[in-house]
């Protein structure tokens, strides 16, 4: 977007091999996520064909595509973090001087990591219980629930990894706080990236 005060549109690795590796992992997760959404389009169309053209009933499609969409969302989290696609309000960071901006960025990254870590931890237990007890969805299709639940620890794990990489990149000055141009102030245009 023209006039944006964002210095970077994706995570910076500054030649660091670990950061680059984590970034690549996030991108792979993004490709898988996109393919899952595409598969959901194809399966939904197939379902409509079976139901309305062949006049037969469908069993697994509605549930299957919903799980695909959930998995696409979870696996897409690290990728969207990598391309800085999670929407936020930059007004306060833009108003702050560099040192305070960096401190705030540290706090924000720390809070996000903490909540992501908590969901990863409890998500793992949630998945493990479903695996251990052999839980199923109690629907006509009745799949084992550990399969869709796996997306929770996997997605949030990769998301936490990308967040950790971003925290390191910010702390070691590879990337400016909030990805903002260090000279950017409130008077610069496009202080926020928004959906819709």
């Amino acid at each position: 977007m023209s006039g944006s005060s964002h210095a970077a549109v994706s995570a910076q690795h500054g030649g660091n091999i670990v950061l680059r590796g984590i970034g690549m992992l996030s991108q792979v997760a993004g490709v898988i996520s996109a393919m899952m959404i595409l598969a959901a389009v194809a399966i939904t169309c197939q379902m409509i064909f079976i139901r309305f053209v062949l006049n037969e009933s469908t069993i697994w499609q509605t549930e299957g595509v919903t799980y695909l969409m959930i998995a696409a969302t979870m696996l897409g989290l690290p990728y969207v973090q990598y391309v800085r696609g999670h929407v936020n309000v930059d007004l306060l960071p833009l108003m702050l001087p560099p040192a305070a901006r960096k401190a705030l960025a540290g706090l924000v990254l720390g809070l996000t990591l903490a909540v992501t870590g908590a969901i990863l931890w409890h998500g793992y237990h949630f998945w493990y219980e479903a695996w251990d007890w052999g839980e199923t969805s109690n629907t006509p299709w009745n799949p084992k629930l550990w399969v869709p639940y796996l997306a929770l620890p996997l997605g949030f794990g990769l998301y936490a990894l990308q967040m950790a990489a971003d925290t390191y990149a910010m702390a070691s000055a590879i990337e400016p706080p909030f990805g903002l141009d260090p000279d950017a102030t409130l008077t610069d245009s496009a202080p926020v990236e928004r959906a819709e």
Partner: protein
Amino acid sequence: MDPLSLGLLVALATILVLFSGISVAAGLLVVAAGFLIIFDGMSSLSLVPEIFFGKLNNFALLSIPMFIIMGAAIASTRAGADLYEALERWLTRVPGGLVVSNLGACALFSAMSGSSPATCAAIGKMGIPEMRKRGYPDSVAAGSIAAGGTLGILIPPSVTMIVYGIATETSIGRLFLAGVIPGLLLVGLFMVWSLYSTWASGDTNVLRSKTYSWRQRLEILPRVLPFIFIIIGVLYAMYGGIATPSETAAVGALMCLIIAVVIYKLWDPLAIWSVLRDSTRESVMILFIIGAAGVFSYMLSSLFITQSIAAWIGELDANRWVLMGLINLFLLVAGFFLPPVAVILMAAPILLPIITTAGFDPIWFAVVLTINMEIGLISPPVGLNLYVINGIAPDIKLKTILVGSLPYVACMVVAIILLCLFPGLALWLPNLVMGEAI
């Protein structure tokens, strides 16, 4: 602490956290987790993954990525420019045909893409330079497209309406229909202002349209009609009772991808990937906010905040229109800073009980809320469409775009007042097509 004071504390904490620069979804999770830990203990966090998963485990949500793919596929082609050209060629006898056709193209493109910035960019790229070339004032050229672009979230299919439908458990089909007449009303108001403003600027010759031969008019149709057929097909499938919004959206997404490849020759695999990549990024961002907002609203109801606010409003002896005015003011301010999807997801669990208790229709309210969000899209400090226009026409000053957009904000306020006076503007069509709501 009583739930109402707690509610105030949650509101303050949410504002503080969201203004820190944290992503909206993570911010909602942080606030929800914080209050759950403080009031229900650490163990309450063990429910968060299940709530998050459960919130997303809804087939209706699939319509979001599907409609986003549909919009991204169309936006990747020059369909917007074709649409605007086609309208201009067919509206030769209409005074100010160019600005009228630009706004008409915005409305039609909104119906295909469901996205405001995509509409703004697609129509504005051709429309703004052409209007300026023919002598329209910069403020009209930029303002009309910025405002026309906001129709993307009101005219169906709209992702914003889907999110509202899911957040409030109201019929997405009804919501889509409710947006049609207010959408057309807004287009009409925008057109009237654009024509008046151009006429008032002094040079009325500008309003004269070019003339086109029948050959020129007919030759552009094959590039536009497929999309019109898709819109008709999507609406027929949805309201003919053939398919749900998610199913319809999936077929629409596939058809738009096919049209982009076949008619607009989008053969390059990289170009197709960029459509998928952009759709994935936007879908994941919205779905993450939906999951996080699910956890947030669980926290609100588990601490009895939602229920207490509804009960408190019920006991208040306030005039319902004063209440509606205050709600509008709140939405307007929230819309200045936050994306529509985030505002709806955060506000819906609190506002819905209030508006139903006060006797307002949730379908009608969706339209009022969406127009408020449209105002946010063209208002400072973060009006996205202003920056999209700034990107398309960098030589028009941001200030001119902003000033040019203000009269259109006034048009939207007029539309909200008209909706308050005549709720039938939003409710008549859904009631006609789908019967009276129970």
